[in-house]
């Protein structure tokens, strides 16, 4: 019998609030956390807004490692992981350290090191320190989390761009199902990155003022930053220790458009495949889904093709099932995005609240329209499906539901 995997702890740092409670207040009140970028000077860019974490200092969570020799995406990941660990009271779980694994997703990794280095080259004609550069490789994110939390299970980073959070969550489920871990800290982390901002800017994808997913007049995505961590735990072990269970991770689907390096497949080929595989793995039909957390970046191409894919997958029900994108509130937090959205889904299930799509004014006939516009709504959420799409046509969908005993 396959093991059931549940979510027992949540940690998040986001542009609309950090810590599970403040984040959820932000979701419920429809906070919009995007605004002028402060991390770097945007004078040379045509646009100036983004989503940054403003209410938490990730450095406060770092106790073993030297914060000056690790990058900002690692700082954020450590903070999120420690929040989630405390939320789950994982330390009281009686787990051997080697039975707890770590898996994080990221898009840019610790590109803050690249950017610090650029600034030093320009201003002082020198490079960033060896200590800092030695912690550039992607997986220093997961290794630092393991080191700080004294965990000895499998540890890796899945740098599958903007779908990375869901990829990491999926792998955590596999580790528990295969008996390689009792619990896994999964999530995603990406700090605000000038290199990333440059990439989306050059592709003409950044909205000038605000992010308006599924709106007829949407003007693009907005680069954001953040991190989220979720504690995945073997259901039986979680019940035995009396853990709070937010939701059950029921299944996931992976796919790839294999179509274009930066553009989605026009008919949502990979998205349909990923959603249908996630539903199959969860033993659910499309009709049973109570809420869809869309990738919904706010670009013309993404929102239209995602809508096409949802229509193909859900048929007539595509106009009934509530679909929202919290990226309107915080921008696209890259590798953290689907992890933060997973936190939102877990809390949506727990509290019976549908997260809103903010900044929405005019429906687009090319897009889904039942988007929980501009205000959260009270409604029971039994099963939530969450999409994440990325450059390279990388796609991953997860499905979670109420954990019924």
């Amino acid at each position: 019998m396959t093991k059931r995997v549940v979510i027992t702890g949540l940690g998040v740092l986001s542009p609309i609030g950090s810590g599970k409670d403040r984040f959820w207040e932000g979701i419920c009140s429809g906070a919009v956390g995007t605004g002028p970028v402060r991390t770097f000077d945007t004078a040379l860019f045509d646009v100036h807004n983004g989503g940054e974490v403003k209410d938490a200092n990730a450095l406060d969570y770092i106790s073993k490692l030297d914060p000056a020799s690790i990058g900002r995406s690692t700082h954020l990941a450590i903070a999120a992981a420690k929040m989630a660990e405390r939320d789950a009271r994982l330390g009281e779980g009686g787990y051997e350290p080697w039975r707890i694994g770590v898996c994080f997703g990221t898009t840019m990794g610790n590109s803050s090191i690249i950017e610090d280095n650029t600034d030093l080259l320009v201003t002082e004609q020198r490079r960033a320190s060896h200590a800092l550069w030695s912690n550039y490789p992607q997986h220093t994110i997961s290794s630092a989390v393991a080191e700080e939390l004294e965990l000895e299970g499998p540890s890796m980073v899945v740098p599958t761009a903007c779908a990375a959070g869901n990829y990491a969550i999926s792998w955590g489920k596999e580790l528990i199902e295969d008996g390689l871990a009792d619990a896994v800290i999964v999530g995603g982390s990406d700090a605000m990155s000038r290199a990333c901002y440059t990439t989306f800017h050059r592709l003409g994808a950044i909205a000038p003022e605000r992010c308006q997913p599924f709106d007829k007049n949407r003007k693009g995505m907005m680069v954001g930053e953040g991190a989220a961590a979720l504690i995945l735990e073997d259901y039986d072990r979680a019940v035995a220790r009396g853990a709070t269970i937010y939701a059950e991770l029921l299944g996931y689907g992976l796919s790839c458009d294999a179509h274009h390096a930066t553009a989605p497949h026009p008919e949502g080929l990979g998205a349909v495949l990923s959603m249908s595989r996630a539903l199959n793995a969860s033993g659910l039909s499309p009709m049973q889904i109570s809420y869809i957390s869309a990738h919904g970046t706010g670009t013309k191409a993404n929102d239209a093709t995602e809508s096409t894919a949802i229509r193909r997958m859900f048929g007539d029900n595509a106009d009934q099932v509530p679909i929202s994108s919290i990226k309107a509130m915080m921008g696209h937090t890259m590798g953290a995005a689907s992890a933060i959205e997973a936190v939102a889904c877990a809390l949506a299930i727990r509290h019976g609240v549908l997260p809103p799509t903010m900044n929405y004014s005019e429906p687009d006939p090319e897009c889904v329209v039942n988007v929980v516009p501009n205000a959260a709504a009270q409604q029971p959420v039994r099963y939530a499906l969450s999409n994440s799409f990325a450059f390279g046509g990388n796609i991953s969908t997860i499905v979670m539901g109420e954990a019924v005993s």
Partner: protein
Amino acid sequence: MTNTNDNDIVITGIGLVSAAGYSLDTLNESLRSGQASRSSLRKHTAEWSDRDYVGAVVDGWDPEPLLGKKGLQFMHAGSQYLLGASLLALREAGLEESMPEPDDLGIVIGTNLGGLKAASRYDYTAATQGPRYVSPMEAPNTLANSPASYLAIRVQARACNTTISSGQCSSLDAIGYAANLLRKNRAKCILVGGVEELNAYSLWVYNSMKVLPSDGAEKTGEPFDAKSSGWVPGEGAAVLVLERRGDAEARGARIWGEIAAWSSSYRGGFDSAARASGLERAILQSLASAGVTPDGVRLAVAGAVGDPAHDEVEALALRSVLGEARTPVCAAKGVLGETYGAGGIMSLAAALAIGQAGTLPEAVGYTIEPEASNGLASLRKQVGDRPFNGGATLLSAHDYHGVSSAVVLRVG
């Protein structure tokens, strides 16, 4: 004979673009002679050093005959290596003319520093000239998973496209990840690979990790050698075609070996014995999961690379698990260099090459000395060749940042 099962995960093809050439035959020649391509890395390092670092480079490879010209100029070297090795693996597996359905074909790639060069250039240009001066065609190259993304488009793989980073364990972890997907029927066929390229930026990271040899070092890149002064950095790609045994047999594919188990653990810090305990756990778990006892291991391929502090960790773990059985050990990185994200599958390729030749050559062979006075001395260079007729093979890797991974492979 081991019992086989339709759901065993088997290797039906392998492709290489490496310092030891492009096939198991050339790799075996290199393992036998102890020689592979070596070049000065001055063109990459001149900006920050006046020294002559030496690398195990992919020398004189022309990707065009294999990959065609279209789109090639937009791909960085690592992506070209990965596509090249993948097409060779598919050819070797007999799939070139009868590719799997896209929905059944997946990609899992271990790599670490893929996006560094392009992201560094992007950021520097944006900060000094302005963001509109970067090339949009370079945008995909800023990401760590760009080699895998190009590959998916090239071979039309839609079942999954995963990139895994765990440093020197990346491609062993990619094998574990891919085997899991196949067992769970999430794909029928997976290209699982490892790739890394040497450039000014990746070498700067290695330099900062202080794993490159010190100036005037007498010995470099010599596994398990206390006098070796650090890595010979390497590059290239190694790719396997993995399938379930039932599918492979049904299409009459040649089966090179079986992936019997994977395991991994984390233990960081500066204490070699503590780190070794992490590696030992990964090794023991993988052996237990494969149903292999330590004295059933016919060959171990270690990740030792010529950095004594690092190699000591592997020596301690191998001695502890395999000392009594005195299992022959191969350290292929002495020839192939440290190819980082590709290292694990390069080691696997070495095991297959040695299995094909029937001999563990003296140049890469090591003997365990269980009574040695210190960790590193527990592995000494083998005298003469030793026979290897296939069977349970342990692949191990330990990473600078603390991850340890192990794969149990059945060769033949």
